[in-house]
């Protein structure tokens, strides 16, 4: 009897550990994507954020990178899952405090989607450290860090 109780307890603990590990799947390192919002019975969540210099026709990133040149167009491709109306927002900052650009886009997805945001600067971006924060209905849904280098 005692052995069976101990086995059940061990099984329960293992389930909790597995559930916690699954819940952390969307995050990793300092960059993450995992915001979720509910609208009625539907949900929508940001599942991925990629950066690169060019995009494909399906709005995925053609060449993922976090190192850019001053003359590059910086593209961010945001993947969402779900079918609820939502507003995706972006906030690009330089050296963690100076706002470079902000933007948002209202989407009415019917399933998995990609939304791209991009910035460019005709006279070139200053060299330094940049950060992109993506919001979903006003709540932070992920961040990406990148560098502009000569």
């Amino acid at each position, binding site marked *: 009897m005692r052995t069976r109780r101990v086995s059940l307890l061990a099984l329960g603990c293992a389930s909790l550990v597995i559930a916690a590990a699954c819940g952390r799947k969307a995050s990793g390192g300092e960059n993450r994507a995992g915001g979720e919002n509910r609208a009625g019975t539907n949900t929508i969540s940001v599942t991925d954020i990629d950066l690169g210099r060019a995009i494909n026709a399906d709005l995925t990133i053609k060449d993922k990178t976090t190192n850019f040149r001053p003359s590059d167009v910086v593209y961010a491709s945001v993947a969402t899952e779900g079918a609820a109306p939502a507003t995706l927002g972006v906030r690009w900052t330089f050296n963690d405090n100076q706002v470079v650009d902000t933007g948002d*886009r209202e989407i*009415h997805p019917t399933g998995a989607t990609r939304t791209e945001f991009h910035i460019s600067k005709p006279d070139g971006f200053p060299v330094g450290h940049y950060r992109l924060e993506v919001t979903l209905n006003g709540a932070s849904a992920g961040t990406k860090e990148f560098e502009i280098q000569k």
Partner: protein
Amino acid sequence: MPNPDFSNVRGGSSSTAPDQGESSQQGRSYTVKPGDSLSKIAQQVYGNMNDWRKIYDANRDIIQNPDLIHPGQTLRLP
């Protein structure tokens, strides 16, 4: 050291998800920003400024003059 000037940064977006009012039609769109032109948008979106005519042809109902687009206009991207 003074902060860099980011006032001339150009931003934009497009999505595979329908905008409001387009829920039955999959399509990408672009909201015109100050300083944009059709060729600049074509360069940003397609990587080729000569593709501006594709955008113009898809938006003839709202663009009277291809040299004159206005900030805030939402253009369909074919």
